[in-house]
């Protein structure tokens, strides 16, 4: 008794059909391994202090790609998702910046934090039209 596909290829292929979403697959976990471990290191207060004092120098201690480093410094969270970042790990970066989840998450949606907050207060984003790229439902 199994739910959904048992074949890993068809299981993963379905994820690409969801609009505006990067599912944290094994491929992304591998690509973002050091990026996420870097973010995780900010849980320690002494690391947060060193990071805040000199972000570039701190990043040099981690084997990130140049793209990953640039995206971290720019706080470009959509780009970081594309480069293997996971939001729970990236949350250590924006928490260190003093941002809430709503503030940080809104930066990925193309609207201002005020508009995003208003959307949430009005019941959130409707799934209508955002379930499937292929089917447009």
């Amino acid at each position, binding site marked *: 008794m199994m*739910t959904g596909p048992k074949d890993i290829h068809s299981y993963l292929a379905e*994820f690409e059909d969801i609009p505006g*979403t990067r599912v944290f697959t094994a491929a992304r976990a591998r690509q973002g391994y050091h990026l996420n471990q870097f973010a995780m290191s900010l*849980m320690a207060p002494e690391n947060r202090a060193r990071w805040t004092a000199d972000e570039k120098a701190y990043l040099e201690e981690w084997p990130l790609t140049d793209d990953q480093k640039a995206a971290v410094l720019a706080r470009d969270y959509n780009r970081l998702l594309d480069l293997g970042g996971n939001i729970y790990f990236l949350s250590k970066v924006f*928490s260190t910046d003093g941002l809430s989840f709503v503030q940080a998450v809104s930066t990925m949606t193309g609207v201002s934090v005020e508009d995003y907050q208003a959307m*949430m207060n009005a019941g959130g984003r409707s799934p209508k039209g955002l379930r499937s790229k292929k089917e447009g439902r």
Partner: protein
Amino acid sequence: MARITAGVGSSHVPLLGVAHDLGKDKDDYFGPIFAGYEWTREWEKAEKPDVVLLVYNDHASAFDMKIIPTFAIGCGERYKPADEGWGPRKVPDVIGHPDLAWHIAQSLILDEFDMTIINEMDVDHGLTVPLSMMFGAVDAWPCKVIPLAVNVVTYPPPSGNRCWALGEAIARAVASFPEDLNVQIWGTGGMSHQLQGPRAGLINREWDNMFLDGLIGESDRLRHVPHIEYLRETGSEGIEMVMWLIMRGALGTATRALHRHYHVPCSNTAIGHIVLEPAG
């Protein structure tokens, strides 16, 4: 003998912990959310569970990318609140029940669930927020807690069916523990939410309530909901709801709902809460 007397489902949004800790739980934004837990707080005072088996997920706190256990059970004596990047929550340490936890762990492994055993870890908002919601501000949590952490971050997480079956195995394990204990099982996380990408902020009130309906009574249709449906309908983080199915599976063939609460929004998330008892 030990027995599972009730199941509780609840979201575990970190902002609820912040609101609770800063005393904002009666303001305009949080008041309606916390009001839905008042019934449960009174009920818990009367029920006095000895142990809560608390199913949750770690959010890059105790586990980083080095080790990703699918199902992990805490067999330790005590757990401290994690520093998630803004300092640990000022809530009591969580006291474990190593005798029952090890009994469950051993029983589950014999029952072909290959559990990871944890003896030491810190516990994050996934575990401490539900405790605050159900017990309020206390000097010590009123019961022992056995953490059961599920990977719902790195794909694939366990299937809903596997989670339900784990709940059934937990019920068998608890029932064979010789001490007379009142045990509750809580499933936490969800409901619909997406914290990433242009689709962030997705909320699906209709689907969430269908899910709550499906926990009540004899139906087991929720165990067959595939991951892709959670992703499409409830956002990328809505997958946390598979953890509620461990709770539901542990309650046996049928349930009765004692209390139910749903509210949008809290931060980026739909809040869902339900109290169930076995009716089979």
